[in-house]
């Protein structure tokens, strides 16, 4: 498959010996006057599974979009496989993106195409494979995520969990080296969410991919992570293995892990607003 990806003149970028696969330095991202990321430094090593945790609005998805090279930062640098995203040419950026597979929070399947066409799209666009081979590959990819016989259905005909799996099959189409998940179990029932966790674990084991996951689900995070990174208010509070995070002394980390609510402001008597006694 590696040779197939090179079929259309793609030059595979590669980080230097001893360098992390993804290196983030002093990353700042602002939307208007609001600074969402305030100087993030992070390394992701080849083959590890990194889970990014943090309360809602802390900048997890913004950080993920930077790592996916979807947005450009206001300041700082993101380097993926040795390519500085801020200075990269369009061609280099394309080269980096072909190393990646992204499973979006909303699945992001193209609703005007069948599931089969969705999964086959990267293969049709980036390889010179014969259509018969593409058909075989797309069935393999769907089978890999536990979907059989859905290639002629439209995404709207699938359940939420099936859509996420189909989106994962599309992300896996070109055998990516880095796989990104944005809230993989959001909106799914615990059984399907557990199935997605198992899928991530099996991908990690079978293909030794570098996997980066943004999630709120603590159980899932501790199950799949080699390392965890906790963000709060645009800064990294803690990075380390699951045990390091679990015993981290920072009060905000412990508050998040132990699900302790923020103290209620004086003057407001309850979390429940409205409703007269």
């Amino acid at each position, binding site marked *: 498959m590696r040779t197939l990806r090179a079929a259309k003149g793609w030059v595979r970028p590669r980080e230097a010996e001893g360098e992390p696969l993804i290196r983030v330095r002093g990353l700042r991202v602002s939307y208007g006057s609001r600074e969402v990321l305030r100087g993030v430094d992070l390394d992701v090593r080849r083959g590890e599974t990194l889970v990014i945790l943090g309360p809602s609005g802390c900048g997890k998805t913004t950080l993920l*979009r930077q790592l996916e090279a979807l947005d450009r930062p206001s300041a700082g640098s993101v380097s993926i496989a040795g390519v500085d995203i801020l200075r990269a040419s369009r061609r280099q950026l394309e080269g980096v993106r072909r190393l*990646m597979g992204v499973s*979006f929070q909303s699945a992001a*399947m193209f*609703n005007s195409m069948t599931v089969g066409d969705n999964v086959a*799209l*990267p293969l*049709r666009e980036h390889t010179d494979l014969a*259509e018969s081979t593409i058909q075989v590959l797309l069935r393999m990819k769907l089978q890999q995520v536990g979907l059989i016989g859905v290639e002629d259905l439209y995404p709207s005909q699938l359940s939420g969990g099936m859509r996420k799996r189909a989106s994962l099959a599309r992300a896996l189409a070109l055998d990516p080296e880095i796989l*990104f998940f944005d809230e993989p179990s959001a909106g799914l029932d615990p059984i399907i969410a557990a199935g997605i966790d198992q899928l991530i674990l099996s991908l990690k084991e079978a293909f030794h991919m570098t996997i980066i996951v943004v999630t709120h689900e603590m159980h899932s995070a501790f199950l799949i992570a080699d390392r965890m990174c906790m963000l709060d208010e645009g800064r990294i509070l803690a990075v380390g293995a699951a045990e390091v995070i679990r015993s981290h002394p920072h009060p905000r980390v412990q508050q998040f892990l132990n699900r302790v609510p923020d103290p209620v402001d004086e003057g407001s008597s309850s979390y429940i607003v409205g409703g007269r006694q």
Partner: protein
Amino acid sequence: MTFLESVGYRAIRRVEYVGALCIQFWQGSRFVLRVNPFAGRRLRWRRLTQQMAEIGVRSLPVLCLVAGATGMIMALQSGAELRKFGAMEAVINLVGTSMTRELGPLIAAIVVIGRSGSAISAEVATMVVTEEVDALKAMALDPLDFLVAPKYVAMVVVMPCLTIAAVFSGILAGGVFAYFTLGMTLVMYLRRTAEILLMRDVVSGLVKALVFGSIIVHVGCLEGFRVSGGPEGVGKSTTGAVVKSIFLVIVADLICTAFFYFFWR
């Protein structure tokens, strides 16, 4: 914000918008040649034919009705005035030249803005909101290549055809007027119209159709790409696409008309 600051801020936003349109047009143009039946897996070609059917074929009935009604209205209004001077035959000149130079392309543009400009904007905006555009980028596919180029090529092919259909409908409606008021047969009327029309009239109408088509596609797509605020933003981007397209089409019409007036008399 003072009054002057507010005026300056709005002016800068308008200039920035036109700049963004020009950049999108320039960057999108690089992908136009990829929309052909021999490139890749014909995905773009398939999208092109779908768009041509959507923009062109499905707009045709309503366009012919609107253009026919406009031609008839023009004939009736001008006939009422020209009768006073005994120049009823000038109605043929008036309907023929104004439909070919001006009203045909403009009516086609307005119908296409209403039907397709809004639909293009809604489609792109929905794709942005549901992260489909991000998914394209993540797959190393340029949205300008995959989304905009087939729509642009479809519009460039279809708009001149729709303009010709609008011109014919308007002129034929004028022919009905001529039959009842001047006793002129349709063949005589069409022959007379062909005599008075110049190559300049036809070319200026077709050039306008191309310019209007480019504006409609690029405004629709830009409004879609700039959607913000989730699903409710889709509605706003659709409204924005229609309003801005109509405004820019009329400004472009003025510029084209002035150009042909001064440089090709």
